[in-house]
Structures are given as structure tokens and as C-alpha cells.
């Protein structure tokens, strides 16, 4: 059983760590603070509607957007009180939430129509030449026109200011637009290389263990690497300097779509009987336990994991990983999460937010999308329009009131990183962490230099 396995494993771990005492010392020395309590929303129910989120978002971002706009357009920029106060032919600045009207956006009304035929292949993008932008504030809305619009990059839910003129057709001709820009960033003491050497955070996402991905070879290799039982002495010494392993969602593979109709054949016993996911979880639990015995694990749920679907996702329940959870080194986090490790502010999502924005804009570059989100000061602009979100009442927890040092997104197609700079000297390391199941990469992030070192695993099945 899992328990006895773990016991054996622990013995094994104890023995293997004897030789590298220093590694153990370093691991305990990394400081860790969870600053993401706001994401830990337990349901008070779903009695509110989504309008409150938009309302709160606009209220929270209004001032920053305006300040940034005044910086750009000068102190005299003619902001009107609201959209209704616009007068035809007069130059004005307006501020509101963007709504992108898209012909190809999935529409549940259409899908419920009996005549609806689902497109044969799910689209990668829903954009279309006919898409238009509307800007809305608490008073009204107006169509935006002009060649200078961010039609290709912006998505619904972004708060934006526009400088322009209302034409005779009642449309707002935009000559310039502006977002909030990056939020302030706390300064980080960059120390010179210490005696005990640099520390690393391991980043991985998309293990996708499940019925469609039974090959755990690469994952086991990664576990072996992390536990120091793989590679040469040099590699082992790097591994030993990994203070935390962050798992950015989707440890589980895609869930098979439930066949409701077949439900009547299943009897009560079937309810308790184990299924394929159960086995997947069990194996995962055992591998994660191996790692946890050695390296602290920070586990965040992803789209496919057994957590709530609407953002923010709550931490994975301990009963799902009974063995791994038994270690004190195991920490279950929310998605998104906001932590500080060794003084590095890290905000991370398991990728849904980025993947959703990707579908509704024309940008291919994931890092550019992530950078845009920092400039919009928002982690999940497309929620609630196309991304399920908890219907907050007076709050929008996805508004960024600070810019992190590191901004992560899991479950991306490829490993990519980039350093981007904000308007007031902010410097952010943006990292796309790939799906391990298709790109078996563990990314090591140096917590001093914030440089990344990808480590590729390729098992016997991989044609590499």
C-alpha cells in the first residue's frame, strides 16, 4: 500500500541525504512568505452577479489609469465625468472597461439551439476581422473606432483610458489610449554571491498524469534528479540547492468528459470503486512523496486538477495526496498565488488566464501577453466574460496592486523567459513554464540573479 511504500521511501531518502548535509542546511534557510491570502476565497455562495466584479475592477483601477494617462497626455487632458457626458465633436478623455464584441466568441445560447453544430475542431483563436471594441463605464458605453486602437492585443475586461473625439455617428474616434501601466514594485536587495552559493526554485507544470498519459518515466526521472539520485556530482550539487519545487498546476491529465447518460448502469458500488484517475492520483502521490521527502513542494492547482474550476482555485485538498501531504515540506497553494521566497516576489498562475487571453487576441507570443497583463495591472481580464471566476462582491482579487519580481505562467507550449521593464523602473522576469507532458522541462530559477536554467528530461520513448 501507499503507506508502506512511503515508509520505505523515507528510509531511502534519509540515507541518501546523509552525504549532502549542506544541501539540507540550505533548504531550511530559504525564507518563504505567502502573500496571497486574498486568493483563498471560500464560497459565501454565488448569490451575486458578475456586474460587481466589473464595478469593483473599474473602481480599483480608475485612479491609476487616470494618473498614467495624465502623465502621458498632460495635466490638462480633458477627462469627462463619464461617457454620457461626451459631446459630439469635442476632444475628450474617457475611461472604462473594454468590451470586445466578437462574432466567433462561443455563445451558449447558440449552442443550446438544436440546429447548432459544434465546429469540428476547437479553435485556437476566436478573433475575427469584424471584431470591435466598446468602452463602458458605470454610466454608459460607446463604440471605439480608429486605426490606432489596440484591437489586436486588448481583450474584454481591461480597464483603459482613451483620448479622442465623438463623431457624428456616436462613435468615439480614438487617437491615443492608455492603461494603468505596471504597479509599483518593492525593491529587492541583490546580494553578491554568498559563500554557500546560489539557491534555486524548481518550476514545473503540466505533469498531466491520467488515462491519456500513463508514461511516468520522465516524471520519475525528474523526481530522481530532485532527490539527487540522478546525474553527476555537479548536477547533484545543483539539485541540492533547490530550495522549493513549485508545481504550477495540471498535475492531472484532462478529465474524460462525464457521460451522464451512462450513469444509470453504474450502481452504488461503482461509486466507491477506484477508477483510472484514482490510480493516476495514487502514483502521483507516491512520486510527489519521494520529492517531498527531500524538497519542499509548493503545489498549485490548475485547470484540470480536482479543485474548483472558477478562479481563484483553492489549494488541493490533502486527502487527494495523503502520502505526500504527510510531509511538513508540502504546501498547497491557491491558483493564482503570490509568495515571497528569499525576498523575491513571485506571482504565478497555472496558465488558464494567459491561455484564455491568447484565444481572444491576435498575439502569438505568450510573454507579450503576460507583459500586457502587467501593464493592465490585471491577472485575469477575460474573467468573467470567457473565464469562470468566483462572483466577488466588492472586490476584484486579480487587480495587481504591486508588480512582482517574477511573474510565472504554467502550462505554456514552450519554455520562454524575458526581462521586461516598467515605466517607473520596475523590472520583471516573465517566465512561461511549459507543459511537462509535452516539453519535459524543469526550470531552475536562481533566486539571486533570477536567471533561469531549464533542465530537459528525455525518457526512452521520446524521440530526441
Amino acid at each position, binding site marked *: 500500500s501507499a503507506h508502506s511504500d512511503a515508509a520505505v521511501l523515507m528510509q531511502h531518502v534519509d540515507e541518501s541525504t546523509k552525504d549532502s548535509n549542506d544541501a539540507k542546511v540550505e533548504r531550511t534557510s530559504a525564507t518563504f512568505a505567502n502573500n496571497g491570502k486574498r486568493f483563498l476565497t*471560500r*464560497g459565501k*455562495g*454565488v*448569490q451575486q*452577479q*458578475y*456586474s460587481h466584479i*466589473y*464595478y469593483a475592477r*473599474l473602481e480599483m483601477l480608475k485612479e491609476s489609469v487616470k494618473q498614467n494617462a495624465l502623465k502621458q497626455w498632460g495635466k490638462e487632458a480633458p477627462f469627462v465625468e463619464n461617457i*454620457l457626458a461626451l459631446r459630439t465633436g469635442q476632444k475628450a478623455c474617457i475611461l472604462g*472597461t473594454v*468590451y470586445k464584441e466578437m462574432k466567433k466568441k462561443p*455563445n*451558449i*445560447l447558440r449552442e*443550446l439551439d*438544436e440546429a447548432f453544430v459544434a465546429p469540428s475542431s476547437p479553435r485556437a483563436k476566436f478573433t475575427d476581422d469584424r471584431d470591435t471594441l*466598446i468602452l*463602458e*463605464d*458605470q*454610466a*454608459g*458605453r460607446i*463604440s471605439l473606432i480608429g486605426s490606432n486602437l489596440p484591437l489586436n492585443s486588448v481583450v474584454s475586461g481591461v480597464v483603459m483610458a482613451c483620448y479622442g473625439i465623438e463623431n*457624428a*455617428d*456616436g462613435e468615439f474616434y480614438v487617437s491615443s489610449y492608455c492603461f494603468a501601466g505596471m504597479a509599483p514594485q518593492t525593491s529587492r536587495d541583490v546580494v553578491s554571491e554568498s559563500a554557500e552559493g546560489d539557491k534555486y526554485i524548481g518550476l514545473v507544470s503540466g505533469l498531466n498524469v491520467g488515462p491519456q498519459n500513463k508514461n511516468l518515466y520522465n516524471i520519475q526521472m525528474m523526481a530522481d534528479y530532485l532527490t539527487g539520485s540522478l546525474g553527476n556530482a555537479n548536477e547533484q550539487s545543483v539539485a541540492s540547492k533547490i530550495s522549493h519545487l513549485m508545481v504550477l498546476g495540471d498535475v492531472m491529465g484532462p*478529465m474524460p468528459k*462525464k457521460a*451522464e*447518460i451512462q*450513469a*444509470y*448502469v453504474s450502481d452504488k458500488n461503482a461509486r*466507491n470503486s*477506484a*477508477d483510472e484517475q*484514482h490510480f493516476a*492520483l495514487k502514483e502521483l502521490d507516491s512520486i510527489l512523496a519521494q520529492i517531498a521527502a527531500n524538497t519542499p513542494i509548493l503545489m498549485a492547482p490548475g485547470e484540470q486538477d*480536482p*479543485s*474548483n*474550476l*472558477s478562479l481563484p482555485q*483553492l489549494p*488541493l*485538498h*490533502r*486527502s487527494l495526496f*495523503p502520502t505526500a501531504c504527510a510531509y511538513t515540506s508540502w504546501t498547497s497553494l491557491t491558483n493564482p498565488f503570490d509568495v515571497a521566497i528569499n525576498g523575491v516576489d513571485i506571482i504565478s498562475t497555472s496558465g488558464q488566464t494567459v491561455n484564455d487571453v491568447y484565444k481572444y487576441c491576435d498575439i502569438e507570443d505568450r510573454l507579450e501577453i503576460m507583459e500586457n497583463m502587467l501593464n493592465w495591472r490585471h491577472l485575469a481580464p477575460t474573467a*468573467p*466574460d*470567457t*473565464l*469562470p*471566476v468566483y*462572483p466577488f462582491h466588492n472586490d476584484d482579487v486579480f487587480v495587481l496592486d504591486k508588480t512582482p519580481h517574477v511573474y510565472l505562467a504554467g502550462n505554456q507550449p514552450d519554455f520562454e523567459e524575458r526581462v521586461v521593464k516598467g515605466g517607473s523602473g520596475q523590472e520583471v522576469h516573465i517566465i512561461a513554464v511549459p507543459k511537462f507532458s509535452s516539453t519535459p522541462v524543469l526550470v531552475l530559477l536562481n533566486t539571486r540573479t533570477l536567471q533561469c536554467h531549464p533542465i530537459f528530461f528525455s525518457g526512452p520513448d521520446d524521440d530526441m
Partner: protein
Amino acid sequence: ESTFERELLELDNQMKDQLGVSAQSWKRPHAKAVNPKVDSFTFQQLDIDTYEGPHMKGMPGIIGNETMTIMRLFGVNFLGNSVCVHVHGFMPYFYVPAPKSFNPADVGVFMNALNAAVSSKSKHVNPVVKVEVQMKENIFGYHSQTKVQFLKITMNMPNQIASARKCMEDGINVDKYGFVACQPYESNLEIILRFMVDTGIVGCSWVELPVGQYKIRASKDIKSRCQYEFDVAYDKLVAHVSEGEYLENAPFRVLSFDIECKGRPGVFPEADKDPVIQIANMVQLQGEERPFVRNIFCLKTCDNIAGSEVKTYSRHAKDIDNERELLSDWAKFLRDVDPDIVTGYNITNFDLPYLFKRAEKLNVKGFHHWGRIMDTPSIMRDTQFSSKAYGTRDSHTFNIEGRVPFDVLQLLQRDYKLRSYSLNAVSAEFLGEQKEDVPHTIISDLQEGTDQTRRRLAVYCLKDAYLPLRLLNKLMGLINYIEMARVTGVPLNYLLTRGQQIKVVSQLYRRARLQDYVIPQVPSQQADEQYEGATVIEPNAGYYDTPITTLDFASLYPSIMMAHNLCYTTLIKGNPASLGLGPDDYIKTPTGDNFVKQTKLKGLLPDILEDLLSARKRAKMALKKEIDPFKKAVLDGRQLALKISANSVYGFTGATVGKLPCLQISSSVTGFGRQMIEQTKQVVESTYTIANGYNADAKVIYGDTDSVMIKFGTETLAEAMEMGKEAAGFVSEKFVNPIKLEFEKVYFPYLLISKKRYAGLYWTRPDKYDKMDCKGIETVRRDNCHLVKNLVDRCLKFLLIERDLEGAKQHVKDTISLLLQNKIDISQLVISKALAKSAEHYAGKQAHVELAARMRKRDAGSAPNLGDRVPYVIIKGAKKAAAYEKAEDPMYVLEHNIPIDYQHYVEHQLTNPIIRIFEPIMGAGKAQSLLSGEHTRKVSVMTPTIGGLMKFTKKVHTCISCRSRLPREDMAVCEHCKPHEGDILRREIDNMRDLEERFSRLWSQCQRCQGSLHQDVLCTSRDCPIFYMRSKVKQDLFVQQKVIDRFGDEW
């Protein structure tokens, strides 16, 4: 609505382009001076009424008479100017047969005798103004075309006719002719129709006032608000036939409006208590696509709406004064903009009566002057409209001189069978748009809020005023009704307010007049005489996997009447020989009645029918040429209306309570019909046989009224079609022209269930089927829930299109299983019935009536009103609960988690339709297996959150997995299930995730649909497919989160 607001703006800009100004101009175009000596004046009349007035100098009539009947024509000329024409000198009249050997010189004697009789028996003094002798013939029966003396009795006023008629029926003493009593003729034709018949004016036709024949009213005598006001003698009018340029329509004005009232919580707005807060108006010119006036009258201040004029009323300290001003201004607006047609949605039974009563309550001076006659206010009357075809409805009528009320709701109720007639449902159906529906309880909150919330309400109100116009445009409602008015000769307003008969009456009188026939007034009789209806060849029920050829008689009943010259005028009463008719001069119908042949005398009804059918043929030709799918549908509607009109001629002769029943005609028609169907069967079955060299013996498997279904025994569609064409031609030869059997379609496969119930794939060409055709099957009936319709529809698709019996069976089982497990969306289970009359008028207790009463007790504001459709679902009741007690409001069911009686749905809704469909295929008794078995075992039971028993139950915490009792309430699973906690949690999370996704998608869709992100969704459109879904998912998600919570906080 954002798109709607943008639409408003576009409208405004288009107008700006055209007129170069932004202000919406209300006034009609300038009326050019007219000189009667040089100019004739031509206009399209849209409304005709009468009034009493003194004789006018230089006009026909009785000089010096103080009270005469004057006709008034209202209309519009080519340039869009409004016209009112006073038509003088037309007097009502009726006929009686002259006494035997009447000397025409004695008309004075007769007149005096009748005047004396009427004067003594009624308050009318000497009302008869003229008696003339005319040679006429009774329309009823063949009289060898001999005209006899009739007395045309002209009266001063229409209301005097009844008294005179009564006197003639009772008998009067006429000097040397002694006691004269007789049936009067044509005494019940209303004066307006009489006038139109005699002058040749048909509904909405063009009328010309010839040069030198009319007078312009002096300004001191002006009575109307029209731009032109003329006087003319009735016999000087020229009625143009609706051809060529007179087929066009004048640019008349259509006003559509909608009001909002501020209700109190829980009560439907009442005019004597609740104020009118907004009135939105749209005015459009006939022939243009967009309204050129868009404005809204708002109580209190309100933010601007681009593209529409917002007029606010907040000047006075007291709202009631502001409201007075608003109402007064609106009435002034109505008079200024001067519409010819007034439309809206349910205006006749809501908006107009409400405004009327409200202004009366507030004593708004001059408000009620809606019409075009300056000193005539509008008055409201309660009426009841009864018709065999349309049922009984309570209704209000108003006199609005010169303007035709044209309620889009009434139009739709007449012409379209819909599940729901709410504006939302209708716009979804015809415009393909879901409309936001703001409950009136929220309207008060919006009104009491800010300028912005009132603006929101105003946009909503404007949209409700715009939709009726768009519906009229899209359905070509006015155009088709104008066409119908012209074809049948009745005024436009009759078409919405009267039944089918009046259209036949109008046509009959017009024809009769031309040929000097007079129409007797037949006293209404009881419908005791029954005649045999159409025949049905007993269906040979079953599932046919071979092509079934269908031959149809085109317009069967009208064709029979035309072919055999069946008419009032051709009916031979008594022995034909006594009328000097030889055997070749007449025919004997299957019912033994005799009619003369066309060679001897052509009947009037065949003439009328020819007109209608040739108009239909024209419509069908145009239909063939048309490419635009929507115009196609409209033309199809037009040809269908003409078909109905043609068939109503037959119905007219058979209506025993009607104006002129003649059962000899109607029963002869059905008699011929029966004979022809039988004959067709006989000819087909004796001709297409193996013995005659065909591959198989043909068999007529079913026949009904005007069609026969033949199994030729051919394998391929092409062969079946070939034989159908051949047989149609061959059999047609045996019938009298214009009766024609036509090959139209082949059904393959064909599922014949019983009389008038069948379904099949419909082919008109061998390579591709046209459609799936279902008759009398649940897919087309509206008193079932959607589940039945969808299930039957899907099963038929499986059977007929995919030819997959197993798939169909599985689908039935799956559906029943989902139903029993409470996994079917409640909107699928909603049944709806119209609340046609109040509870005391129903004989027994009816589910929807009782429910409406219960809902009224809970919340009078949201309860259904008379005329509404009441949606309900069947819930589990106490064992002996009557069916009517088990109906419940779907929203109430959702909110209180009340268990639905799924068994009821299986037994009472699904069983019969399923058995009917599957039995012909699977064999008698076998279809029952679809309704019981493994798939019906798993049943989900809900726990209601209300009800008597709940007070006594103690909530026991059970293990989420095995339902065993738990010692503490903070546990999720029992000790036994603890090792599987992760799996159990995961399953529960799975359920939650599904709900979360639905919640998110449904509510964000509503946010999009209402066109605003920052405001709460208010819409309560029950006709929207996601209305119940989004409430249910909210409820379910709440419950599911509670379950998840029990697993504890230690994440």
C-alpha cells in the same frame, strides 16, 4: 442594449444626412394649394366612418334635413398629406319583395303606410325617405333568371332600418294591397360596407375626387386636423381599381408606442393608482425601413440617449403635476405627428386603456382627443370578440377617427400559432433576438433611482416601441393586410377585429349587386342540422420502408364549387322540370341536390373563387421567383391567406349560425369530395396492377379530405415519382375542370400512425429530401412540454432520416433515464396554457387557472393575467392530490427545490407519443419496453425546502458516500469510507466544476445580452432558453459548495 443604442444613433445620422438637420421633424409635408376647378384630388383611403349632420347645400339628400348620415373618408395622398373627405347624400336602404301585382305608381302609398307603421311602433318619425321599384332577383335559388319587382326602401338613418324591418316582418296594411308581411332583404349590411359596395370602394383603395366635383371646406367649417378637408357627393367619387399605380401605397404614417408604469410591489399596475412614467414613440413612413421620429416622454429627469429625443418632466414640485403635463404633451404629440396607423404590442388591451384611464383619473384636459376630428374625444368601450376560427376574447375598442389601431399582438395571435406570444418570444422567433425583459417590480426601482437608471429604463422602453415596427416590417404585416383588404373589399380595421365571414359577405354583395341579385336576410338558426364531413380512407397504419406517392387535389373545395357551379344562384329548389330545365341543364350532386350548369347560368361563388385563386396563383408565381428566404415566407403567407379565404367561402355556406347558410352547397361539396377520393382509390387500384403489366398491385393506404397516399410497390423514388405524375394525369381526366389531381411529393420512409397522424421524409425530387413532414404529431402541438416535442422530433429523425431504430430506442431510454434522475433542464418540462378566461368561467378546475390564482396570492405583480400563457410544471403531490393541485410555477419549484413528478411526465406526457411512434414499427405491445426496465431504476429524489412536513423532520448528517449516519455534523464521510475520501471528494468536485462552468457561461451570456457589464442582469424573460437554467445552476452550485465545504478547511 448596446447594439440597440447604436442602432438608434445610426437612425439619427441617416436622418441628418437626408434632412440636413438633427431635430426630428414631426410635421407632415407642406400641403400644396388645390383648386377644385382645375385639379382632381386622389388619395388612398385607410379609414371610413359615419356621423350625423345637417344636409349640405348643393349635395344630394333631403334639403333642410338636420340629421343625415354623412360618410367620412380619411387617407393620405401620394405626397403624404393627410385628407378628410365628407361624403354626402348616401342613405341606408333595404329591399322587400313588392306586393303582388304592385303598381309602381303606388310607391307613395307604400311609403306612407310604412312610415305610419314605424312612427307608431318606434321613436322614429317618418324615417322612410324614398321607396322605389327595382327589378331584382333573389340570390337564393335558381329562378330561370327572371327578375321580379322589389321595393328599395331608403331610410334617413341607419339605425332606423331595424324598426322598419321589424314592421315589414310583422306586416303592415298598405291600402289597396291589404296586409303585407315579408322577409326583408339586405337589411343587415352595415352602412359602411353598404357604402363601399355601392361605390365600388374596397379596403385601402385609391379614391379620386374629380375636377369640379368637390369643395374645399371654408376655414370656419373645418372639423378635422387633416391638411385637406373636402366635401363631395357620394355619386361623384371615383373608386380606382387596385391595379397599376393604384397598387402602390401612399407614404402613410405608422406610430408605434410603448408605455411604462410604476407598479407597487406585488401588484400589477392599476391605472387609478400607478403613474405612467415613460412613453416611447417611433414613427415610420410606409415604404421606408426606419422610423423618422424616435422620442421618449419621461417622468423626472433622465440622461440623454443618442439618436432619440428625451423629453423630461420634472418642472413641478409634485410628480403628479409632472405626469399631467407629460400625458397632455404626449396627446399633443400624437395629434401633431398625425399617424394613420397606430401600432404597438398589446396596445388595445394594455397601453391605450391604461393611458385612457390614467388621464381620466388625473383629469388631464384635452388628453382624450386622439382622433382627427377636433371636437370628438375618444371613448373606450369594452367588447367581446367571438369567432369560430379565433375563439372568444375580451377586448377594448376606441374610436380614434381617421387612425387605424393595428395591434401587432392581435396580428400574431391571428396568423401564427406560437407557444408564447410575449414580445420576447416573438422577437426571438421572428427577429432571432433575445430581448431583455425587465420585470415591472424592478421598473419602480429604476424609476426611483438616478438619471442613469431612468435612462436605462428609457432605452428598454424605446426598444419595446421599436420591436413592433420591426416585426411589422419583417412579417410584412401591413402590406399583406392591405392586400387582403383589397381582395376581399373590407376596410383594413375589419381584418383584425372581425371574423372570416365578413370577407365573404363583402365579396358576395359586390357580385350580387352587379347582377341585380338581392340577398335575403336569413334569421340565425340553431346548428342542429349536421351533414357528413370529409371522408377519410381508413389508414392502413404501419411503418413503410418503400416510397409512398402522395396525390393531392389542388384547392379541392373551391375547385368543386367552380367545377360544378355550386352557388346560391344555381341551386334548384323543387322539381327542375317545373323550371323548364332539361336533364342536360343541371347536375345532381351526391347529396341529391340539383344545381344548374354553368352553360345555363354562372354562379357568383365560382366567380369569387376564381378571383381569389388567381390572386393566389400570382402569389405562388412570385414565390417561385423570389430568392430571399424571408420574402419567400411572406409570399407563402400571402398565398396561404388567399387559400384560407377561398376555403372560407365553403365554410360560409356551411355556417348554420352565419349570415347566409346553404347546406345544400356545403354538403354537396363534401359529398363530391368523398366521391372523388373513393373514385381515385378505385381507379388507381384497378389500373396499376400486375395484371395490367405493372410490377406490383398499387394500394391506397390512406386518404384524407384532399389527398391520397399510394403504395405503388416501386423500389426507387424516381419510379414512385414517375408513376405519381402519370397517375395524377390519368385520374384528373376523369374529373370536371378545374378539379385537378396533382402529384406533389413522395414520402419515403413513411410512418402512418392513425387518422391525421403521420410522419415521413418528404421528397419532391429523387436526389434530396425536402424536409421531414409531421402531421398531428407532438412536434407541432403546443400544449406539450418541450421535452415531448424534442424527444419525438429526435426519434423521428433517428427513424426517418438516419434509419436507426436502435438509436431511436436508445434515445428514448436515455431521455427517460435523465428525466428520472432530475437531469433534464426544467425549461424542457414547462407546460403552458393560455389563461383565456377567469376561474369562474371554467367548468371544472383547471391546473393553470388554479395556479394563476395561487400565484396571485403569493405575488399579484408577477402572476399571469388574463390572456397570458401560464407556464407550469407538474410536482409531486400528496397521494390523492388532484391533477390541478399539482401544477406549480417553475420558478417557485426551482427556488424551493420542490420535487417534480417525473413519473407523471413519463406516464402522461411521454407514454402515448412514444407508443404511437414505436408501435407501428416494433409491433403491438412491444413498445412498452421502452418505458420500463433497467433505465428507469435510478431515480433521484429532491428534498423540498418548504412544505408542512419539513417542520417535523430533523436534519440528519449522513456520509456523503454511503449515506450512513454520522456522529458529528462536521464530518464529510464515515470511518468506513475515510480511506476513499480523496476519490469521494474528487467526484464531488467534478460535479461542482460542471456547475461552475455552466454558472459562468450562463450568467456572462446574460451580461452580454443586456449590453452592460457594470449593471446587474434584470432580465426575467421566461421564454429565453437559459432563464430557468441560470436560476437552477445558481441553486445547485450553492448546494454543491456546501457539500464540498464539509470536507473541511484543511487544504
